[in-house]
């Protein structure tokens, strides 16, 4: 199914919860396909949207490729869901933009198992909380590491466990 049909089906089911469809206007055909994304106006609706995307037979997005976290620089953070259906071989990218002071999104681990570690890494690197995640620990850094490194305003600590960090 092409992007427009997918969007149209989603709009009928979720209407105002979805934001605009950002089409990428690059000359490269691949980037038009894999660079355009659907914004989600209401991040709290992600769980029902995810259930619908995975369980609707005509959509059947059974594979979550990746959850990326993005610091937009103007204080807001974004969570990007890269979805794919191995049944119909079509892809979809969803982007939810969150305010910086309460960056939290419902967890989709109970829908795609792959999200478990992806969300833990988004929490670890960018500091986005995922409500309902079964094991909300940091995955790469130690639990006592100060701050979330991939934020644009991150300052690396001078000493950590008694070791000098900067060169």
């Amino acid at each position, binding site marked *: 199914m092409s992007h427009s049909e997918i969007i149209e089906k989603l709009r009928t089911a979720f209407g105002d919860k979805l934001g605009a469809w950002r089409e990428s206007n690059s000359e490269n055909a691949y980037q038009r396909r894999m660079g355009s994304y659907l914004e989600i106006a209401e991040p709290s609706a992600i769980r029902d949207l995810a259930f619908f995307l995975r369980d609707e037979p005509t959509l059947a997005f059974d594979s979550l*490729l990746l959850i990326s976290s993005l610091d937009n620089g103007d204080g807001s953070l974004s969570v990007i869901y890269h979805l794919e259906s191995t049944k119909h071989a079509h892809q979809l990218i969803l982007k939810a933009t969150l305010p910086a002071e309460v960056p939290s999104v419902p967890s989709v681990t109970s829908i795609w198992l792959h999200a478990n570690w992806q969300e833990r890494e988004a929490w670890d690197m960018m500091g986005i909380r995922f409500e309902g995640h079964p*094991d909300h*620990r940091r*995955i790469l850094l130690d639990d006592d590491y100060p701050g979330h490194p991939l934020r644009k305003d991150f300052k690396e600590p001078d000493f950590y466990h008694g070791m000098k960090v900067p060169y």
Partner: protein
Amino acid sequence: MPEILERHTIMHSPLHASGPIHAPEDVERGRLHTEEMVLNIGPQHPSTHGVLRLEVVLDGEVVVDVIPHLGYLHRCFEKHTEHMTYPQVIPYVDRMDYIAAMSGEHGYVTAVERMMNIEVPEKVEYIRVLFAELQRIASHMIAIGTFGMDSGAFTPFLYCFRDRETILEMFEKTCGARFLYNYMWVGGLSHDLHPEVLPMCREFLKTSRATHKEINDLLTFNHIFRQRTAGIGVLDAEVAVNGGASGPMLRSCGVKWDIRKNDPYSIYDRFDFEVAVGSNTLATLGDAFNRHWVRMQEWEQSLNIIEQILEQYPRDDTTDVQSAIPKRLRPPEGEIYSRTETPRGELGYYIVSKGDVKPWRVKVRSPAFSNLSLLPIISRGYLIADLIVSLGSIDIVLGEVDR
């Protein structure tokens, strides 16, 4: 085994979520009252393929739960990409998946070329696919060698490393480095193909087919190896797709999903090769043996591709390999998710560019990271020796897992 299930349901947080570690819970098993022991297969361990720590909850010898701890090799790749220009990121991409550096470069370079809509000359495409497939064989050789060593056979490791040296020699002649090359640049290559590489490649095809047959007789059809790996660490096809598995781990469950065929990039559509899939006759689908079997088949398919490349390679084509490299590498504003098939699975780059010389954000979909997240699911209820075999069959590279 409902007992393992409801006490340690997959969703249930592990023994010591983030608070202090309390003693393992006592388990009531009928009249025998046994405790569980928490064992650390820690960062320094011969069979964790690098610095990975597995916290294993054991009941006697049976694994009740596995909690992987990562981050011992987190080298802040994504933070570096924010401070480096696009070409400067390539050496860091090499050091991310250091066993298949060429495939990592190929993925990153394809992504940036798609963003800038660059058409790469014919010759460069052929050289890239040739080196990507040679790198796939070298990576599978390491995977098969160490997997043999994990299940107790030391000789295949030495045979594989001996033959890998010839591949490294070819790479070294062309781009000067044994591995970690910085060879594929955005829009071209750093050096043209060394004249001796094509004859060496033809010679390598013969010796590699002989070694492939030798490893098959020595390892794959060896009864002890079959008993040790068949039916171990079984992964269901639906759980594999839902859990984000890709590459040999996904194909060994019977899902015919290969990015080179399903989402073709570069000139892979000119070669005919089959997608290697696990077989239900040799052993149960999705187990450790099938993952090894898929790698052995992929080794053979890569040899076929290289053979076709040697026939189709434009020998009299003298275009400079650096002709399509843009002078000012500044992709237009926008984002892209581009992916390629590396020996471990689907390596994806999500690149956001704000029209600057440096990328705003590069997020990497690391196949080894996703495949490793399925380790707890495929090792519950098996013996601890089988856990080591399951981990070895996943073929992880910690540089890519921790990025």
